[in-house]
């Protein structure tokens, strides 16, 4: 029933889009959903379509993994040492406020176009992972940890049974937020840095040649992939929850 309602809402907005496109009646400004979806369907059997998606996805994955590993490591270091915290925290707060656009333009000066999206994604996601994990570590119930130590539990058991379950909600939330953010950041960076063979490159080309239906087709593709990835990540995290 819920899925039916969601489908109804989706159909309603597609219908609104169709009506507005018919009123404007200019493909260059707003193509109809039928034009956009049929173009997307034409793209589906093309090898380059999947290859370019794969390249962008690998950049998203790499940026995410680097930011998660670095964010967790920095959060642990800051939790363990006040000095490290005093050094790192202002940097993280500053990075958080820097616009993504500034990061892209800055990195473009000294990085290869293919690397820029990964670097930007890492810089954009790192403060989110860092602050979530740091907050989680600060909020770990010390009395429960003391209970574990009092009962002489091995360190490994204290971590996996007492500490990790308290950190997990913060970690999961960081991963979910960063996945959506990383996806948008990488595509934006690709549009500006124009590395060959990427989703961003295709968006840029569509814009340059005023191929609005193609721009819409790629955008719909991005939305669908984004939803699929988010659902996959949530399912993976749920699976992880069950195993802990």
């Amino acid at each position: 029933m819920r899925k039916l309602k969601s489908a109804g809402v989706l159909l309603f907005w597609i219908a609104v889009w169709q009506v507005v496109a018919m009123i404007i009646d200019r493909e260059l400004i707003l193509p109809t959903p039928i034009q956009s979806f049929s173009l997307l369907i034409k793209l589906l059997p093309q090898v380059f379509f999947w290859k370019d998606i794969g390249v962008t996805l690998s950049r998203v994955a790499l940026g995410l993994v680097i930011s998660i590993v670095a964010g967790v490591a920095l959060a642990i270091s800051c939790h363990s040492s006040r000095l490290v915290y005093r050094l790192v925290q202002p940097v993280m707060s500053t990075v958080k406020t820097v616009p993504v656009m500034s990061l892209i333009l800055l990195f473009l000066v000294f990085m290869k176009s293919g690397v820029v999206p990964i670097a930007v994604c890492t810089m954009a996601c790192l403060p989110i992972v860092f602050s979530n994990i740091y907050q989680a570590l600060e909020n770990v119930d010390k009395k429960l940890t003391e209970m574990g130590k009092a009962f002489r539990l091995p360190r490994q058991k204290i971590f996996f049974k007492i500490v990790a379950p308290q950190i997990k909600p913060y970690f999961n939330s960081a991963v979910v937020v960063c996945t959506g953010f990383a996806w948008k950041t990488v595509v934006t960076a690709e549009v500006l840095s124009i590395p060959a063979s990427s989703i961003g490159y295709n968006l840029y080309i569509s814009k340059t040649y005023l191929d609005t239906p193609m721009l819409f087709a790629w955008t719909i593709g991005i939305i669908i992939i984004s939803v699929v990835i988010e659902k996959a990540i949530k399912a993976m995290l749920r699976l992880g929850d069950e195993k802990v």
Partner: protein
Amino acid sequence: MIKVVNLKKSFGAELLFSNLNFVIPKGSITAIMGISGKGKTTLLRLLAGLDKEFEGTIENVPEKAAWVFQEDRLLPWLNLYDNLALVLPRKEGALAAVLAALRLVGLEGDKFKMPSELSGGMQRRAALARALLFQADYMFLDEPFAALDRKTKLDITESLFALAKEKGRTLVIVTHDAEIVERADNIIDLGEARII
């Protein structure tokens, strides 16, 4: 035997207690009593080695001890069975041991309940069961019978003391309860700063 000589503890400028001298013989039941804020819990933590900042000496701090903390300290994400099994070093024989401990405190039928599904008294009993399950020569109990009705308290005390005597365990209990104090072998009264 834990031996305490000239023990002094203060938090900053505030002196909690000083010049404490006593022994806790092996296999005995010792009650620590006194009005709130006199440092009963702090003394218990010092005796168990959980707090190491003090003046004086404490000899023979036990390396391993079972605990009932002032708060129940059950893990909210584990059910009752897993909370208890957590303190066992091995999985073999865990089921029977956990069930026996739960039976002793009357919670055998609640083994799969989460701590949030238990009343305050039931959580207290679960914390007691966890301490009973843990194999150690010493048990440190901080207000273990708080939130229990009198009948349950007396039943559990009976089992706990009998088990302690049978296994030669040393019990150190922080309590306000006169019925428990009466049954102790030694009483440390922090209110009066004297050993009875």
